[in-house]
């Protein structure tokens, strides 16, 4: 179950700097990559998954609850990661450094909602 590419493009149409949206399966396999620019490299994908797993482990060990939205910012790139409540699918939105975090947060949540309500094929 993945999102329609058109839906992704529609939702992200007014978001400057976004490069790719990756859908991960509960087993952390890449199910779908939608790119507006260069596709994400393997290092970025393993970084995103690694951080998500690390945060989940830390939160579980310390009783702080399951992680929601995660944002990683480096000199040239921003990545937002969010696990959908249903099905255990996860979305990662990657973009250039100038990508607006507040707006991309809203867009990502919108996409997760679409995924959960069945806007997926």
């Amino acid at each position: 179950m993945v999102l329609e590419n058109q839906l992704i493009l529609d939702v992200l149409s007014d978001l400057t700097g976004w490069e790719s949206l990756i859908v991960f399966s509960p087993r952390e396999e890449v199910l779908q990559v939608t790119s507006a620019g260069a596709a994400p490299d393997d290092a970025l994908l393993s970084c995103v998954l690694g951080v998500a797993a690390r945060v989940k482990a830390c939160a579980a060990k310390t009783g702080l609850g399951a992680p929601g939205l995660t944002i990683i910012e480096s000199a040239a790139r921003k990545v937002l990661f969010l696990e959908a409540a249903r099905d255990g699918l996860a979305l990662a939105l990657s973009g250039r450094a100038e990508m607006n975090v507040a707006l991309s947060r809203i867009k990502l949540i919108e996409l997760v909602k679409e995924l959960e309500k069945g806007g997926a094929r």
Partner: protein
Amino acid sequence: MSRPAPAPAAANPNACLLSAVWNRNRLVVQAPTPAEANALAFHLRIFIPRYRQLLLCGDIPKEASFLSGARLLRGDDPEALREAVLQSFEEEEIGSPPIQVIYFQPPAAIVSGVLAGLDRGWIATTCLARAELQKAGLTLHRALELGRSAIFIVDPATESSKLEDMIFEQTRDSSREVQQYVIQMNQSQVYLAFQAIRDELQTRDSVTSAAILEEYGIRQRTLDKILTVGRRDHRLDLAPYIRDTPPDVLKFLKEVGRVKTVDLAAVFEGETPVGYAKFREVVFPSRYFLDIVAMASLARETSGAFRSFEAGLETHHLLIYQGDYLYAFLVDIQENPFRFRIEIERMLAGHGLKIR
């Protein structure tokens, strides 16, 4: 003849005495009769750390001779006594537990010939007048007047007694037994922590106070006590090997403490913790922040150097910012991360620091 200064009015007299005994200061318990002096000395018994070897000398009362683990040193020959006591102090150098001498009713000749020459670790009971004690070579720096009796502290007050004040504040309404338990527990913690830090330093050049505060789960006042008691018990000064939190970071952390939503703040230089402040009870080892940053830096070649990280958990936000140092926070989930970042940037700027 000069009179000793009274103990500071604001200080709890028991905290002052506990501090003196714990720091191995020299004390004279003076009363009109030996029985009254002994009773006062027994009042101090719960202030003596359990790990110290008690060395009882002089006119030892029956009840004292049954103190568990105490060594008795009898005889009145000043020369022989001095030799015996000095030997016990020397044994500390080769690993024996620190000793605590309690000398019951020493004659003036013993005060001048034996006790006055020892720089630490004794308590004497006496019926001698203050003038006679001073004539015997003792400088009485502080006095706690207790009706007809008094306790004189031979050493000047140079160290903070914050931990002792806290202990008596915490046990203000408790029984003497509970007080004893809390005192002994703190003393054991300080003793064990000193040994652990000393052992740790055998494999490292230095440690940071931030790492000690976090790993040992102690506060700054306890670390200060560890260093003081280490100097007095073991004649070993660990302070030069412990890196303090940089002053700008310390000021920043104090300011962060005023933000009600921050539960934990940790500051790192590379992978070394240099600042740590836990404002509310929360479990989150600060090395977890480093683990996350290490993982987030994996894509450095294509994405560039790590700048910041934010994760919303059920109860807290995990926020990490790279700047002059690496700043990490555990903040209540009600906080707005954007607003928080702006606030942190403003605070850092106030201390000449910044994030990228």
